[in-house]
């Protein structure tokens, strides 16, 4: 793709050149109608202008995409930086203590010949201190490992209809008396699937909550489940709210991207949903029209392939 702007330039100017030459030739050779010749020249110039506009547009789009991904990247790096600093700090403290104790032990051992029993006592204390600091370090690394493991899904048999209905009931408590109606259409023949229940709950709850927040003037939320073509489950959540502008659709799953008022959203909800659905081996799709509402569809496999934990 890198060479394409040059190719377009060449093509554009070739267009101008050819049409110019053509019209000039026509004019000279036949002494023909000047209207046709200037028309040709005009078309050529238009072509060139359009090509150059198109290229500028493409260039600015590319620059914007690069900028966007750089922003996300820098947010990620900032979070990573903070995390690493935290870990480094946590581990540095016990390390400092261990270092100090080691020096003390060295000193005690070097001068031990004179003072027998007292230095033995001090040595024992030092060694104990080192052992306890090492234990502290072990706890820190264990916590980190747990943190990573906590993110791993655990697959269990789940009745999707029931899980979805549980979340709908929770949201319904909030929407009562606010002009928001919730319509359900659950597929009675939907087979249970193997997925991570709390993860899926979080996804459904987030989507329902977004739907609710998109309809401050009231409206309808439609919740539907059905078997997907691949034997898994499909969950659809549709609202009649404000909708999402077309140009923002590709970015709504990006971390920190939000259209909500300042302080109303972190911009993490949908990116978390996307991350969870991804780990569950599924997909999340969105369709939206400004002023008409949005539709989110979560598609989940009946079994996670290749990443199942447990039975």
């Amino acid at each position: 793709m890198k060479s394409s702007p040059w190719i377009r330039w060449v093509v554009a100017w070739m267009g101008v050149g050819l049409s110019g030459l053509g019209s000039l030739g026509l004019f000279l050779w036949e002494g023909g109608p000047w209207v046709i010749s200037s028309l040709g020249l005009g078309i050529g110039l238009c072509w060139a202008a359009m090509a150059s506009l198109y290229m500028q547009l493409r260039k600015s789009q590319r620059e914007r995409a690069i900028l966007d991904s750089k922003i996300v990247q820098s947010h990620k790096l900032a979070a990573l930086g903070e995390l690493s600093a935290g870990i480094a700090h946590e581990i540095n403290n016990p390390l400092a203590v261990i270092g100090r104790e080691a020096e003390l032990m060295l000193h005690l051992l070097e001068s031990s010949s004179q003072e027998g029993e007292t230095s033995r006592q001090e040595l024992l204390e030092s060694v104990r201190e080192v052992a306890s600091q090492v234990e502290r370090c072990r706890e820190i690394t264990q916590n980190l490992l747990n943190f990573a493991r906590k993110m791993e899904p655990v697959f269990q048999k789940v009745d999707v209809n029931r899980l979805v209905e549980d979340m709908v009931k929770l949201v319904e408590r909030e929407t009562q008396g606010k002009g928001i109606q919730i319509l359900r259409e659950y597929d009675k023949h939907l087979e249970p699937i193997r997925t991570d229940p709390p993860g899926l709950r979080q996804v459904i709850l987030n989507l329902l909550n977004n739907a609710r927040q998109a309809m401050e003037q009231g409206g309808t939320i439609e919740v539907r489940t059905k078997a997907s073509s691949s034997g898994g489950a499909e969950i659809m959540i549709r609202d009649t709210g404000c909708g999402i502008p077309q140009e923002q659709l590709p970015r709504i799953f990006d971390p920190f991207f939000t259209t909500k008022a300042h302080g109303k959203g972190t911009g993490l909800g949908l990116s978390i949903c996307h991350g969870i659905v991804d780990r569950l081996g599924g997909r999340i799709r969105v369709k939206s029209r400004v002023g008409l509402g949005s539709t989110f569809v979560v598609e989940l496999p009946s079994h996670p392939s290749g990443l199942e934990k447990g039975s």
Partner: protein
Amino acid sequence: MTPPRVLVVDDEEDFLETMVNRLKRRGLEAKGALSGPEALQMIAAESFDVVVLDVRMPGMDGIEVLREIKNRWPFLEVIMLTGHGSVESGIQGMRLGAFDYVMKPADLEDLLGKILQAHERRSLRED
């Protein structure tokens, strides 16, 4: 599978006692705590598989207790009891790692099913 060891945390004494007794009668090993700090002490002293935790409690509320539990015992499963359930605290609970929620007054069969599923999850994680 050994019966789940359950800790129920709620500041309403009557509710707590009834719930613990009903769970015991269904073959579970159940105990009760009247506050967040008491619950945390009990969890530190003995092991549990599932905690059933009231969202609304005076002093340390359920969300705070949940945060502390997930911080210290990330694989202990927690089911939230929501009284006047709000979506925000529900979402917050789920985001902080709660396994599920049950609306008060809790239906025993419903709660039991959720406790068993939470227990299964815990044992799947242990291997």
